[in-house]
């Protein structure tokens, strides 16, 4: 639902870094999205494609690494992965309740760019 705002934010950060680094084109954007954020990767890709038309980032590939939800049991301290059904029962001691450790990530890891040819030649000289 909030993918539009999230993608807008990704897009402006990507463009910002691309321009700062004299990119002629952005080839790839590496993202990390935690499962619990509820941000749908396919929606982000779709919005990004629309927003990036006619910019340096047009045609860039979005690589999304999904971060699983991990939690630590409040009773015995066991760390375990929480699956899609969001079951908070500890697989070790069967008690209910755990502190969420990961899965809330939402960040841009890196971008891959192509630089202006002129720029490359200058460097070679």
């Amino acid at each position, binding site marked *: *639902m*909030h993918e*539009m*705002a*999230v993608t807008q*934010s*990704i897009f*402006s*950060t990507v463009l910002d*870094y691309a321009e700062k*680094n004299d990119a002629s084109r952005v080839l790839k954007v590496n*993202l990390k999205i935690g499962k*619990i*954020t*509820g941000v749908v990767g396919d929606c982000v890709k779709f919005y990004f494609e629309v927003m990036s038309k006619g910019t340096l980032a047009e045609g860039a590939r979005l690589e999304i690494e999904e971060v699983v939800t991990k939690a630590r049991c*409040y009773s015995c301290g066991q760390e375990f992965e929480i699956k899609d059904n*969001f079951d*908070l029962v500890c697989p070790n001691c069967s008690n*209910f*309740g*755990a*502190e*969420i450790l990961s899965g*809330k990530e*939402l*960040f*841009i*890891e*890196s*971008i*891959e*760019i*192509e*630089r202006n040819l002129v720029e490359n030649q200058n460097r070679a000289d």
Partner: protein
Amino acid sequence: MEIKILESVLERNNKIAAENAKTFKENGVFVLNLMASPGAGKTSFIIKTIQGMQGSFKLGVIEGDIASKVDAEKVQETGVPVIQINTGGACHLDSIMIQKALPHFDLKNLDLLIIENVGNLVCPAEFILGENLKVIILSVPEGDDKPLKYPLMFSESDVIILNKIDLLGLTDFSLERVYQNIKGLRKDIKIFEVSCKTGDGIEDWLTWLKERIEEAM
């Protein structure tokens, strides 16, 4: 070539939220970010809170809605300054919208600002505004399973208001189950059982809130 960024997607929102928080602190304003589903009773809860604090505290309200000023008009009847933000489709408020609304308030003359977020249990969880407390209202007719269905929202909040407890006997809602579901996510979270209709539990909430404000100021 690869360029490392390692920046939160919400970096811009977070930065402006930090600026808002600084502005609030400098002016001695305590801020609540109130989140809930549509119809959970956010506006009624705000009005009850205003009625209980007016006189000893100077209040202001920001109403966030996709459209209309229905809520703002209701709150305005209490006499406190209200600003309506219509997001025009966006399903949450962000820190930039709040920053733009602030010049409409005389912040020096405010002790408590209540921000009513857009009715939604998904999106507002990600966007901090510069608030002191995130408050979630969960009402009895919505069901006791909501904390498990919207874990991010419930795990990010500071206090939970269980509203419409006067309807407890009319639904399958179980207080025991809801406590278990909430505490399963957040062991130490503060929970209040209230009814904005009968006024039950409001006094406890107000006492606790006043303590938090005094602590922060």
